């Protein structure tokens, strides 16, 4: 009786019905070579397990576990309020500005834990292209498609969209502990500002997020040609693939 390789593998993997398995066992009894193949299959399985199973016992990196922890609730972003803060008696302190990576690819790299030259970058959301940091993956996708007015449960949060003085469409965003402003450059999103939320002892995570948001809004004010795009204008800009006509 001839047993094809697929059937033999299925036997070794325990995928055959009792009746079919009995037939294979009959054939194996008559052909020692088949028995050797089944044995080799099982040995390979054991070797692969020995190779990969230690990962099961290795500690899971915080950056993965952190994604699955509950976060703080939504905040309302109000550009006018930011402006009032800036012009009023409670000026936004200049101190946070020193944390900006002002287009400096190196500083931004450090802030994001980016290792240039590697395929895989933590988060997979940033890449270096001709010396410029550009968004990739999840972040690029959110910047291109997500509307600030409709983003329930998304992991990248668009804070606002605006037209910059240089004519490009730009968007402020938050992604985990990172926040920044990305501007449309061709089909890429160039990260013109990035900021990593370095936890400070004096601030709760909530306050940390709020001050980070405020800094982004402040920076956006400096860059914007006018007001932030409203929901209609934002949708129109997205539908035009963020290209100005």
């Amino acid at each position: 009786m001839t047993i094809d390789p697929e059937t033999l593998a299925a036997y070794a993997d325990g995928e055959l019905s009792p009746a079919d398995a009995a037939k294979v066992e009959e054939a194996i009894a008559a052909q020692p070579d088949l028995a050797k193949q089944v044995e080799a299959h099982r040995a390979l399985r054991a070797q692969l397990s020995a190779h990969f199973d230690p990962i099961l016992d290795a500690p899971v990196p915080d950056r993965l576990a952190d994604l699955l922890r509950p976060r703080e609730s939504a905040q309302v972003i109000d550009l006018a309020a930011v402006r009032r803060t800036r012009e009023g008696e409670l000026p936004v302190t200049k101190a946070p500005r020193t944390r900006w990576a002002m287009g400096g690819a190196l500083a931004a790299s450090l802030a994001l834990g980016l290792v240039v030259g590697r395929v895989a970058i933590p988060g997979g959301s940033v890449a270096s292209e001709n010396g410029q940091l550009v968004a990739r993956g999840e972040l690029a996708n959110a910047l291109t498609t997500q509307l600030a007015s409709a983003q329930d449960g998304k992991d990248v949060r668009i804070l606002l969209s605006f037209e910059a003085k240089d004519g490009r469409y730009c968007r402020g965003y938050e992604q985990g502990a990172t926040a920044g402003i990305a501007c449309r450059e061709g089909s890429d999103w160039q990260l013109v500002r990035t900021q990593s939320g370095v936890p400070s002892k004096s601030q709760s995570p909530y306050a940390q997020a709020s001050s980070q948001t405020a800094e982004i809004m402040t920076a956006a004010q400096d860059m914007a040609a006018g007001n932030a795009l409203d929901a209609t204008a934002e949708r129109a800009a997205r539908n035009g693939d963020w290209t100005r006509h």
Partner: protein
Amino acid sequence: MDETRDANRFIPGKRRHSFLSSQFEQGIVALLPRLRRFAAGLSRDLAAGDDLCQMTIERALKSRDQWAEGTRLDSWMYRIMRNIWIDEVRSRARRDKTFTVEEAGLSIGTDGGQESRVELSNVDRAMAGLSDEQREAIMLVMVEGYGYQEAADIIGCPVGTLTSRLVRGRDALQVMLGDAA
């Protein structure tokens, strides 16, 4: 609600969960070690695998509404992971061409130390010699322990396709690993 009334006012995403659906998160947390193992096998590198894990978790949280409660969360997560890997990561890695077989490796537990890399390189190299489709089939059935039908469902291919990839991948591994297998 009139979204256009106040041009300056934005209401970012309301997080509607954190309490009610914590079971979903906890389910994924419990799967993390296995997801890391599968990701490391697909991407042939533990760190790159963790990046893939992160993308998978992000996608899963975003698409949580598509998961039907009562169905298997593990198969659903594996399917998301392999789709991201096939559609995004693999094509990017090919384009960048930064990966070589020599650089890849799992190097578990020693943070990329030379010794463990040498130790583990036999299986690493053999796995690297498979086609992506074969490696995926091998990982799902021989490492993750899925049945043929489950593995085929995760990949989204007929069972016959799965078994032929599995058999060819297994034969190739046995040749590359020699008598040790």
